[in-house]
């Protein structure tokens, strides 16, 4: 049956003071009770089904009606006995709560009981004021009526009452005659007689109580329960069948030890009064067993319960109803008066109080000095009226009275009264909820509307605020707490959770005492109730943190930790890092102070995760704390062993993805340049000419790391400091899946700056090949010098998607990148390139060394090398000067092949240094990749192995060369070259000499010694001459034939030129060193040219189709040295060569003339047209045909040069005495030279007719003789044509206007027929000749 929660009703129930004669006390003490009130205590709440009339005179049956029996002294003479002071209460609560374990969940119940029952006798409310007095005399008393008289007088004398604001006289008086069977026997007659007397004297409110009916001695029960019970179900009286001394004693023990029912006992125990020291209420002390109810029988208990019921139903409730009605009249009368104040003048004129006293004698208003209303004041009366109707559960009426009181009190500035009325008003509103009506069925309550709820909350808030306002902040406000608890209980009953947590927090105020901590924790619990499941979790976390802090300040560490742990579970889900860290830190610190260093270390560890937003260096503190905690933990090996698995770093230090295994001292052949290595490898394998078997591969397998026994390799780890404080890693080492026969280095100590990432190399040496593979499994280290950590380095491979099962469950391939294969010792060569600077200039020759070391166990020899840049590295030959007799140079475009590198053998363990020369052929960054091949010279069957070398060079431009060729005009094939050399660099360059290299041209070498500063230019003149004695095939018939086959459709694989292996050059003074350099440059330039001109021919076939040097080509070499900036002589001067390639002084002629005709013939005849399947193929073929037939090889230049001369002229003037000698016949010479080195030229020279259209100034010459001259000029030949002009008077004459038609052709060998190739025509320029008469 619903009703207001028992805790509310109980704590606000009517209080009845018990005043007894001494012999009654003695009878009670026989039962272990200190008075009649204690004997009645178990039964005081047991009154059921009480019918109460409300102010509207409607009777309501309430399920229970508890009352509180207290001793007379505690109410009247010594109120401090009934309720301990606030400080004592707080201490009591903390000691009781502290004695319980958090898991028992008793902290709130204890706090609630103690708070509610420690309500002091206060002026601003009347709940603790006595409602009635129970007088008891015993039949044992010698003069029972006299004693009763005395007792009555004692109660009614006002002197005994030591507080002025309590109305101790307007109370119900109830009289009990106690008959102690144990002392007086079974005879009830004297008792009834006495009762009749008492009734006669004191009226009907009197009854008889028979106790101690148990006469014979009973065995004490085995184990009386003496523990403290915060709340127990109210006992029912025993029926005779149930009579059980043990149960009876237990009922008494629990009732007397119950904090709800008898708070005073607990308080007294704690106060240390000797009189009550035997009561079992100190939480820590062991208590004496005590037997209760030894003399009581089951009938006695029924009689006791009946007494209480009689008292309540027959006397108390009717009396209170009567008082309510009576006071209601007064209240209404005054209320009219009070409202009348609004219209009238002063309050005393309207004070139509029943006993309106004269002003000054007894003050009726608020006593502002002492802070109370006198009992006669209407406000005090009204308050009592309201409290009475509250106790009678007429909440609506009580609420209206409280409401008006609230306003009046506020007007009088009686803040405590006002707060009390306010809180009760709110509570009345709350308890008016239909759920609390006894008639309503016990269903799920309908909640308040928002508005109602807000109103109730606001009343509570107002009252709480008022309490907090009028006291220091840190002092605890028990009043506020009490009322909050009452509200909370009511809310709990109706299932109202909206903003309950907030009110609880508010009510608990600011003080750091246990009660407020308990309340806040309760608030946290209230947060998550009601509403959806996840709602309020965050608020709960916050309240838990607050509660934890208060618990800790109050000294209850266990509760504090529990709160923090619960909070941290919520915060751990969400990345509010700062709050999270704070909680973890506190938890860790608390655990440490409690000696649980393993938990402490665990908490501190959680703080050490990566967080970017923190204050720099803030993680240093936890790190140090953790070190201390761990030190303590380490001193307890059992704990350490248990917790070691849990101690994992939150952020891993080492990046698994960046972990690599690097075979020692070898340049890596993986990564982005892998394709170039593969290309180099295929070049080496394609041109294999070594002894022994050709290996399948030369490069180390990218996927598989192979290491020989006793060879050291490196494990590269990438360590990152996740903290914002410096971190020390100690004893870093790695572990493989096996520990046998591996020698692993350990790095003693590394200090990482905040957030630093560093690569750590650990050397590992396998000692035996008994295991074929070892796999890297983990890395171990001491985190910050103390915490041993192990991080797994096992990597997952690619995600597999092959089967359905793999797609459903993520399956990964095995990763091989951290697996090392160990082979028995193999031949090994260590190669290092030394002495080549990082930066070079174009054409510079740098001398360096290749350092070789045999690190294997076997002798090696037959060393060869191959580089991806052909010829850029060559062995430095001993500097003996080449004999000048050998002027032939290789004329084949060398393919990139394995070059012999070192002929001798290298025994195991020995090293060699081989001098080399590096030539920079082109500008830009050069990645120089090389393979040094070697094999065992003694054993032809061994395969060849290779070691890779890598070097990176940046080449910068130094000199810019620009050449212009001019004919000298003296001889047919004599030219001048104007070579302009510009220094593009910032170095000072000295030009030592300029050479020319050509098969067919002779260059006079100029030995200059000019110094070029940056941006300076040098212009030099070189004269060249055609060496007509050479034997070269100018037509390059072999090349053209091969190209012809190609064009005719032969597959390129089958076409090859029968190439001449060498060609003689005209320059005799080249040293072999310079020649080597020249060939390298020439080759790269030639390949470049060819690929530009023949885009359709794959570059790999150039060396089969073309020669390196064409006979008519001329290359110039500028021999330079860089002047060192410092004058020290020790520095080797840097030297080099700058080249200008493929100059051709003579006019070029088509080499493919005959081929073209042949092809044309074929096309016309149509029988050779090949059909292709794809458009692209035919396009490529057309392109090839164009590039061959119409490209560079088909270029025809006009080989003819004409020079017109007047032999008689002197500086353009001819002086003739016309008067004396008459007209002049002036001879003119046409020098026509054929510069073509191979082909003859036919010419026709047409001399012009004199023109009449000339202007007056310049006359046209009048040629005489044959006006058309013809002839043929042999290659390299010159023909002189002499003509005359006729001049009759001094004049200016122009020698231009002639027309020369030339035709290049050749005479066929067989029939001497002229085959024309191409013809040109030219007209002579205006060339003015002055003819002057004398």
């Amino acid at each position, binding site marked *: 049956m619903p009703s207001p929660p028992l805790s509310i009703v109980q704590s606000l129930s009517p209080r009845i003071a018990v005043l007894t004669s001494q012999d009654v006390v003695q009878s009670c003490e026989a039962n272990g009770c200190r008075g009649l009130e204690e004997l009645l205590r178990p039964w005081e709440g047991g009154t059921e089904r009480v019918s109460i009339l409300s102010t509207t005179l409607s009777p309501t049956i309430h399920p229970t009606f508890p009352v509180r029996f207290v001793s007379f002294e505690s109410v009247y003479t010594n109120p401090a006995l009934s309720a301990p002071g606030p400080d004592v209460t707080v201490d009591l609560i903390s000691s009781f709560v502290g004695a319980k374990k958090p898991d028992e969940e008793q902290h709130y119940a204890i706090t609630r009981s103690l708070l509610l029952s420690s309500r002091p006798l206060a002026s601003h409310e009347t709940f603790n004021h006595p409602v009635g007095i129970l007088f008891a005399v015993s039949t044992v008393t010698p003069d029972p009526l006299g004693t009763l008289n005395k007792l009555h007088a004692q109660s009614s004398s006002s002197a005994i009452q030591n507080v002025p604001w309590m109305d101790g006289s307007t109370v119900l008086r109830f009289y009990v005659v106690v008959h102690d069977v144990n002392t007086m026997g079974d005879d009830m007659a004297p008792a009834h007689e006495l009762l009749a007397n008492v009734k006669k004297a004191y009226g009907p409110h009197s009854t008889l109580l028979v106790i101690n009916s148990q006469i014979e001695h009973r065995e004490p029960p085995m184990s009386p329960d003496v523990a403290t019970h915060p709340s127990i179900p109210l006992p029912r009286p025993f029926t005779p069948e149930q009579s059980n001394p043990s149960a009876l004693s237990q009922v008494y023990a629990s009732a007397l030890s119950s904090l709800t029912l008898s708070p005073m006992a607990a308080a007294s125990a704690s106060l240390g009064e000797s009189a009550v020291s035997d009561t079992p209420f100190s939480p820590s002390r062991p208590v004496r067993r005590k037997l209760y109810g030894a003399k009581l029988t089951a009938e006695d208990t029924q009689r006791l319960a009946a007494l209480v019921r009689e008292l309540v139903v027959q006397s108390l409730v009717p009396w209170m109803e009567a008082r309510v009605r009576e006071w209601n009249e007064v209240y209404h009368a005054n209320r009219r008066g009070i409202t009348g104040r609004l219209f009238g003048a002063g309050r005393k004129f309207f004070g139509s109080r029943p006993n309106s006293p004269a002003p000054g004698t007894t003050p009726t208003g608020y006593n502002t000095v002492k802070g109370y209303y006198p009992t006669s004041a209407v406000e005090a009366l009204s308050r009592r009226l309201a409290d009475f109707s509250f106790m009678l559960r007429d909440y609506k009426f009580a609420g209206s009275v409280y409401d008006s009181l609230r306003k009046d009190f506020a007007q009088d500035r009686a803040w405590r009264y006002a707060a009390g009325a306010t809180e009760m008003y709110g509570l009345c509103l709350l308890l008016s909820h239909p759920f609390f009506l006894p008639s309503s069925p016990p269903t799920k309550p309908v909640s308040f509307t928002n508005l109602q709820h807000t109103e109730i909350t606001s009343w509570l808030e107002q009252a709480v*605020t008022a309490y*907090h*306002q009028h006291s220091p*902040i*840190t002092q605890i406000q028990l009043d506020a707490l009490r009322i909050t608890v009452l509200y909370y209980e009511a809310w709990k009953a109706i299932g109202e959770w909206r903003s309950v947590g907030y009110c609880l927090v508010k009510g608990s105020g*600011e003080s*750091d005492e246990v009660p407020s901590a308990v309340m806040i924790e309760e608030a946290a619990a209230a*947060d998550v109730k009601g*509403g959806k499941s996840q*709602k*309020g*979790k*965050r*608020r709960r*976390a*916050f*309240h838990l*943190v607050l509660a*934890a*802090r*208060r618990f*800790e*300040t109050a*000294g209850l*560490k266990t509760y*504090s930790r529990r709160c923090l742990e619960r909070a941290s579970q919520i*915060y751990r*889900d*969400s*990345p*509010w*890092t*700062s*709050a999270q*860290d*704070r*909680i973890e*830190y*506190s938890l860790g*610190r608390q655990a*440490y*102070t409690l000696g649980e260093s393993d938990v402490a270390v665990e908490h501190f560890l959680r703080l050490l995760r990566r967080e970017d*937003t*923190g*204050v720099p260096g*803030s993680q*240093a*503190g*936890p790190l*140090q*704390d953790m070190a*201390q905690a761990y030190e303590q933990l380490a001193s307890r090996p059992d704990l350490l062993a248990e917790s070691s698995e849990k101690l994992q770093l939150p952020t891993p230090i080492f990046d698994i993805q960046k972990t690599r295994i690097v075979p020692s001292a070898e340049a890596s052949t993986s990564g982005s340049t892998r394709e170039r290595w593969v290309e180099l490898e295929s070049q080496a394998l394609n041109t294999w000419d070594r002894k022994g078997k050709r290996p399948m591969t030369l490069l180390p397998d990218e996927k598989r790391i192979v290491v020989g026994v006793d060879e050291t390799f490196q494990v590269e780890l990438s360590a990152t400091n996740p903290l914002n404080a410096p971190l020390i890693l100690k004893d870093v080492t790695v572990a493989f899946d096996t520990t046998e026969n591996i020698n692993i280095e350990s790095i003693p100590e590394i200090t990482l700056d905040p957030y630093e990432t560093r690569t750590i190399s650990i050397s590992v040496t396998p000692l035996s090949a008994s295991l074929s593979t070892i796999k890297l499994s983990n890395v171990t280290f001491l985190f910050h010098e103390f915490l041993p950590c192990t991080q797994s380095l096992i990597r997952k491979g690619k995600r597999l998607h092959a089967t359905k099962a793999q797609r459903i469950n993520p399956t990964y391939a095995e990763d091989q990148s951290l697996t090392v294969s160990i082979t028995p010792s193999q031949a090994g060569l260590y190669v290092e390139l030394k002495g080549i600077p990082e930066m070079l200039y174009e054409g510079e020759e740098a001398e360096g060394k290749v350092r070789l070391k045999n690190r294997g166990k076997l002798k090696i020899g037959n060393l060869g090398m191959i580089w991806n840049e052909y010829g850029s590295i060559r062995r430095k030959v001993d500097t003996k000067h080449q004999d000048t007799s050998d002027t032939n140079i290789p004329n084949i475009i060398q393919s990139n092949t394995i070059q012999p590198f070192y002929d001798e053998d290298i025994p195991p363990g020995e090293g060699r240094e081989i001098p080399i020369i590096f030539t920079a052929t082109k500008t830009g960054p050069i990645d120089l990749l090389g393979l040094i091949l070697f094999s065992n010279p003694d054993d032809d069957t061994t395969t060849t192995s290779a070691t890779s070398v890598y070097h990176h060079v940046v080449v910068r431009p130094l000199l810019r060369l620009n050449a212009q060729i001019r004919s000298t005009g003296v001889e047919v094939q004599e030219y001048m070259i104007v070579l302009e050399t510009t220094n593009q660099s910032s170095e000072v360059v000295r030009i030592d000499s300029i050479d020319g290299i050509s098969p067919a041209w002779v260059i006079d070498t100029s030995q200059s010694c000019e110094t070029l500063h940056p941006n300076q230019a040098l212009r030099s003149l070189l004269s060249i001459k055609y060496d007509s004695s050479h034997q070269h095939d100018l037509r390059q018939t072999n090349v053209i034939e091969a190209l012809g086959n190609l064009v005719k459709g032969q597959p390129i694989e089958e076409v090859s030129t029968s190439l001449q292996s060498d060609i003689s050059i005209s320059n005799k003074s080249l040293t072999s060193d310079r020649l080597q350099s020249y060939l390298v440059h020439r080759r790269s330039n030639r390949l470049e040219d060819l690929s530009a001109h023949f885009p359709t021919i794959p570059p790999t076939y150039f060396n089969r189709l073309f020669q390196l040097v064409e006979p008519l080509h001329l290359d110039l070499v500028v021999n330079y040295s860089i002047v060192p900036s410092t004058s020290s002589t020790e520095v080797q001067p840097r030297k080099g060569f700058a080249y200008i390639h493929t100059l051709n002084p003579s006019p070029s002629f088509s080499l493919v003339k005959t081929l073209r005709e042949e092809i044309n013939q074929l096309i016309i005849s149509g029988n050779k047209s090949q059909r292709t399947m794809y458009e692209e193929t035919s396009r490529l073929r057309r392109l090839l045909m164009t590039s061959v037939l119409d490209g560079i090889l088909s270029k025809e230049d006009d080989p003819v040069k004409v020079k017109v001369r007047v032999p008689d002229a002197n500086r353009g003037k001819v002086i003739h005495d016309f008067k004396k000698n008459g007209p002049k016949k002036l001879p003119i010479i046409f020098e026509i030279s054929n510069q073509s080195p191979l082909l003859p030229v036919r010419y026709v020279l047409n001399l012009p007719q004199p023109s009449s259209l000339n202007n007056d100034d310049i006359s046209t010459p009048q040629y005489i003789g044959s006006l058309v001259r013809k002839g043929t000029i042999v290659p390299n030949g010159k023909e002189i044509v002499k003509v005359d002009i006729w001049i009759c008077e001094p004049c200016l004459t122009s020698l231009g206007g002639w027309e020369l038609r030339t035709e290049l052709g050749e005479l066929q060998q067989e029939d001497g027929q002229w085959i024309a190739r191409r013809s040109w025509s030219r007209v002579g320029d205006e060339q003015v000749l002055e003819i002057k008469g004398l």
Partner: protein
Amino acid sequence: MSFYLAIVSPLDSPLFELSFPSAKPPPGSSSASSTSSFPSWSTFTAANGSDLGADGPGAKVGGSMGLLSGESKTGPERDRAMCQMIAHKSLDSVEEMMDGTGSLYLKNIDRHNEWIVSAFIATNVKFILLHDIKNDDGIRLFFLDVWESYVKILLNPFHTVNTPIRNPVFESKIRASAKRNL
């Protein structure tokens, strides 16, 4: 006189946090009214050092643990933890309020001691502002500015609603707006 702004993702993680002081002097009336019901309540941290009780009576048990007794936490760090907790807790109130109102700006939805919490519901993230004086209009304008900046961040196709914002331009914009409005 300080503010703390947090942008909270739908998964309750802070995307952006910023605490900044006020630019304007406190208007006397509003500050008085804001704290009228709690006149003497101290700030959460001022009364006895750190909130989590680093200087509680039992904290010295460790003896040698000098660092354990609270010196390691600097003031701003402590405040930040507090602000985070209040902001985190107020999300509950925001979600309660969200259902019942149509407006995006929820003013003074929650409070803890001197801190007042206002919120702004921008699509599915929430802006939570902790402030200690009442300045409804200023805060509303400030929120609108933040919203605008946030929408610009959101235009980035690589930005998801749960990506933390680490854009310095965004921060400077918000600081400028705070200077203007708060």
